[in-house]
């Protein structure tokens, strides 16, 4: 329990104000989710969401022509987002009734929450009639979830996804170690954390594997990286300027190994319990890694589908993108960034870069802020609605 400073022995007893759910972790928000499950009706789902103020829209551009692992991964994202604890109820907007029923049944089984369905099948392919039907059903759900109230919930119920985007040298020096120290504190309290983006373990996978709970998990970490490295090699391309990208190189990062060694600092120092498949919920509390794409919008959707209620998102020069269903705390340790992007960066880690504060003290204050956000304090991304969900394809992005 090295992550707990002796002057704060009561962190494990801490609570946040959350929304209890019939099954699983409490929510830190209580919104209606409009879930578009087929790209054919995405414009309709968008219109429906516009007619339901305060709801969140997650709409896939896909939904047909997917087979095997691709279909399974797509379904896992739909069901995961539909079951997300921050949504008090889910309105499924679909095309054919059987697919919508399958998604609805899986969401109800996993989350026990209220689910309604509206499909083109119900209205003889009339998208305007679908709009009217879905808005009415969505309104009923919104009224139902408005009756729910926040109650004290143990901090152990928190599950945090940790992401980095537009990294520079300050990420590996300051903001990623800070996110890692936060993960350590949360895990020590019985909570759960995940990092993803397999390609950004490349060159650092031996370090991560040493932290695995056993040899099986360690070997899975190494193999997940090897699989993607083989795929890159098979394409006959070089990772430079893809990953690390142009903004990484501008910030001083010269290779994927350098970026990865900085990136894994956000996993803290606790044992890695499992390698999660993309969008898969963790089988137990503690620290996990998710085998997923290195594009942060997709990675965040994977964490959200796994059930993470809050995201920590570190950046060097700034990055406005947020999860849609999970409040996303933007952290930068670059003094110029935190000054320039005062209405984007939620947590200023530059005192750590300037050696004006200790890592432990900054991690304690980030932990306090995490509980504030869990209890309802809005992030900049929520205020300006910078969130979206980005569905990933099997074998798609690296």
């Amino acid at each position: 329990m090295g992550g707990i400073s002796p002057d704060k022995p009561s962190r494990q007893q801490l609570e946040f104000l959350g929304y209890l759910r019939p099954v699983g972790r409490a929510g830190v928000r209580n919104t209606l989710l409009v879930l578009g499950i087929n790209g054919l009706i995405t414009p309709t789902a968008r219109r429906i969401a516009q007619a339901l103020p305060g709801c969140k829209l997650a709409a896939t551009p896909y939904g047909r022509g997917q087979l095997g692992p691709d279909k399974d991964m797509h379904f896992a994202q739909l069901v995961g987002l539909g079951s997300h604890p921050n949504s008090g109820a889910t309105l499924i907007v679909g095309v054919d009734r059987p697919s919508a029923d399958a998604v609805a049944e899986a969401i109800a089984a996993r989350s026990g929450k209220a689910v309604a369905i509206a499909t083109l099948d119900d209205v003889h392919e009339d998208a305007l009639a679908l709009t009217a039907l879905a808005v009415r059903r969505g309104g009923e759900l919104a009224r139902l979830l408005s009756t729910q109230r926040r109650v004290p919930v143990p901090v152990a119920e928190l599950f945090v996804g940790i992401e980095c985007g537009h990294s520079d040298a300050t990420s590996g020096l300051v903001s990623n170690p800070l996110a890692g120290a936060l993960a350590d504190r949360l895990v020590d309290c019985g909570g759960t954390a995940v990092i993803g983006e397999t390609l950004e373990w490349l060159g650092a996978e031996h370090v991560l594997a040493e932290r695995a709970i056993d040899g099986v998990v360690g070997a899975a970490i190494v193999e997940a990286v090897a699989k993607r490295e083989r795929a890159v090699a098979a394409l006959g391309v070089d990772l430079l300027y893809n990953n690390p990208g142009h903004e990484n190189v501008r910030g001083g990062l010269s290779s994927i190994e350098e970026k990865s060694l900085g990136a894994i600092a956000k996993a803290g120092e606790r044992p890695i319990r499992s390698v999660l498949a993309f969008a898969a919920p963790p089988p137990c509390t503690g620290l996990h890694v998710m085998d997923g794409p290195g594009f942060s919008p997709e990675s965040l959707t994977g964490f959200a589908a796994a059930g993470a209620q809050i995201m920590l998102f570190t950046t060097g020069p700034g990055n406005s993108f947020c999860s849609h269903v999970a409040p996303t705390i933007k952290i930068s340790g670059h003094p110029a960034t935190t000054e320039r992007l005062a209405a984007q960066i939620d947590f200023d880690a530059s005192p750590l870069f300037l050696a004006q504060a200790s890592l432990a003290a900054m991690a304690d204050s980030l932990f306090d802020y995490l509980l504030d956000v869990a209890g309802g304090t809005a992030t900049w991304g929520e205020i300006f609605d910078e969130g979206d969900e980005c569905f990933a394809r099997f074998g798609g992005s690296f």
Partner: protein
Amino acid sequence: MAESENTPGATGWNAMAIHPHDSVAVALRDIEGEARVRVGDAIQVVRLAAPIPMGHKLALSRHETGGDVRKYGQRIGVATAVIEPGHHVHVHNMASCRGRSGA
């Protein structure tokens, strides 16, 4: 960047080696002239061949072509040319060893 008594620049270092065995240091601000590199508890002074932008790397020792470039105590790539101490280390004189089909 604000300066105060507590900033690394004001207290005597403007670059740091993350791990004591690293062959490169990270500039903590835009530096020219000489870098004062914190390596563990010691300060190593390195004359710079050219200005180093904040966040970028400077060589602490001579790297032969093909030699390891080390940061975080790990290899982050190899030198693609001879790199003298105090020189900027970046994509023009080092390369990844991973994820490269042409390597």
